[in-house]
């Protein structure tokens, strides 16, 4: 992968002008988004520059423990993100624990599989492969899990009468929760299915574009992209399914009751955060 065009900070500043023009437009139109736009852009720039420094060091050291540490930090941030995207989450540590642990387990498993199977990087934990791969897999699993869990907990509240009607008739908690669990899984899978359906036709996936810009032959970039989409689908699938089954288990109990009291009210959450 040689022969890519190097960027200077001046190039970035020129591109940033686009955003500043946009911010100016929202200011003119009174949309009150300019503050948030500039803050988000600033945050993104600082985050990425810092990550660049971290990666540069990480890549030169090739240490298993440092790589694992960085992966863990990424997973902790993603876990917070899952929690923040749920309107009605499980109370206590469960809200954080189920989403984070299933995401981490699915992401780790699939990343290890890829590193030891198709990629054969040397050593297998070479951060140049491990970290970007883990990041992409983690990000997609995070989206699937957070959408799925948000859907499950809202549906459990909405469909309480229908769920309890089934329990009353002597169905088990798994049977009674199946209709809403199925809808939640479908919601969690949708972005992954959509991105596979539209890849190459509607848009060129980001990683493939990046590789092509960096000088890789399109045929190789495409193979990488297909591999990545399979890995993402696998991790999102495992993560979403296990997170939803775990939450169904926690939202019910061994006497086959629906336990909405184990959800935290959004109002109480705001109060505790303040």
């Amino acid at each position, binding site marked *: 992968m040689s022969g890519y065009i190097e960027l200077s900070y001046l190039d970035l500043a020129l591109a940033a002008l686009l955003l500043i023009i946009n911010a100016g437009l929202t200011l003119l139109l009174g949309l009150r988004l300019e503050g948030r736009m500039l803050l988000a852009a600033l945050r993104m720039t600082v985050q990425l520059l810092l990550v660049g420094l971290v990666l540069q060091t990480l890549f030169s050291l090739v240490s298993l423990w440092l790589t694992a540490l960085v992966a863990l930090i990424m997973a902790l941030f993603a876990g917070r993100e899952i929690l923040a995207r749920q309107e009605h989450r499980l109370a206590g540590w469960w809200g954080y624990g189920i989403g984070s642990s299933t995401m981490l387990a699915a992401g780790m498993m699939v990343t290890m599989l890829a590193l030891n199977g198709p990629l054969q990087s040397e050593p297998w934990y070479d951060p140049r492969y491990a970290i970007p791969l883990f990041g992409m897999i983690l990000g997609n699993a995070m989206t699937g899990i957070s959408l799925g869990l948000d859907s499950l907990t809202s549906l459990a509240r909405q*469909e*309480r009468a229908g769920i309890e009607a089934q329990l009353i*008739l002597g169905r088990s908690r798994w049977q009674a929760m199946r209709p809403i669990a199925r809808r939640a899984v479908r919601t969690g899978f949708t972005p992954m299915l959509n991105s596979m359906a539209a890849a190459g036709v509607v848009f060129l996936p980001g990683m493939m574009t990046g590789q092509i810009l960096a000088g890789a032959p399109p045929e190789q970039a495409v193979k990488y992209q297909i591999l990545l989409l399979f890995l993402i689908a696998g991790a999102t699938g495992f993560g979403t399914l296990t997170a939803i089954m775990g939450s169904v288990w926690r939202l019910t109990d*061994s006497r086959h009751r629906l336990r909405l009291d184990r959800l935290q009210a959004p109002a109480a959450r705001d109060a505790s955060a303040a």
Partner: protein
Amino acid sequence: MLQVDDLHRPGLGPISLQIDEGECLGLTGPSGAGRTLLLRAIVDLDPNQGRVIAAARERAGVPAPEWRRLVAYLPAEPGWWADRVGDHMPDREVARELLRGLGFVDPELVLSWPVAQLSSGERQRLGLARGLLAKARVLLLDEPTSALDPENCALVEELLRARPAAGASVLLVSHDAAQVARLARRSLRLEQGQLVAVS
């Protein structure tokens, strides 16, 4: 037979009562007194403590799904989980018969109705039919005729009268004192989570 000993949960009890085989016991009281909480506690839909025995089996030793087939709870506003009425009826043969008894002229057509288009009275009668299908030994009825006109109310009462006659134990929650007098020989009153009077 249904026997409840020292049943309690926050806002309710301790409650002890007994209903013999073939008996219908009325339960009255102001709204908010905990009547629905009591029925839900007996079928174990909410966490609660206490001993409950139905048909000579103790609740603690029976898996919850099996317990709820033994002790059927029919809520005032039945819930639905599928699109069509028929999807909620496990035994369509028996369902057709019950629906005829509840005043539906064409049961087959009723089974194909979308749940979303039912009136509240239809929902209530269909919910009763669904709950009565399994012929449970104990029936817990929560305001079974609250959304019904007098004509349908009479049909439901006739259907309910047949259950104790067939040996079931029935606990009937109703705000209608006349209905309780018609269906139950004995009744209790619940106030602020406690049983207060026996008549």
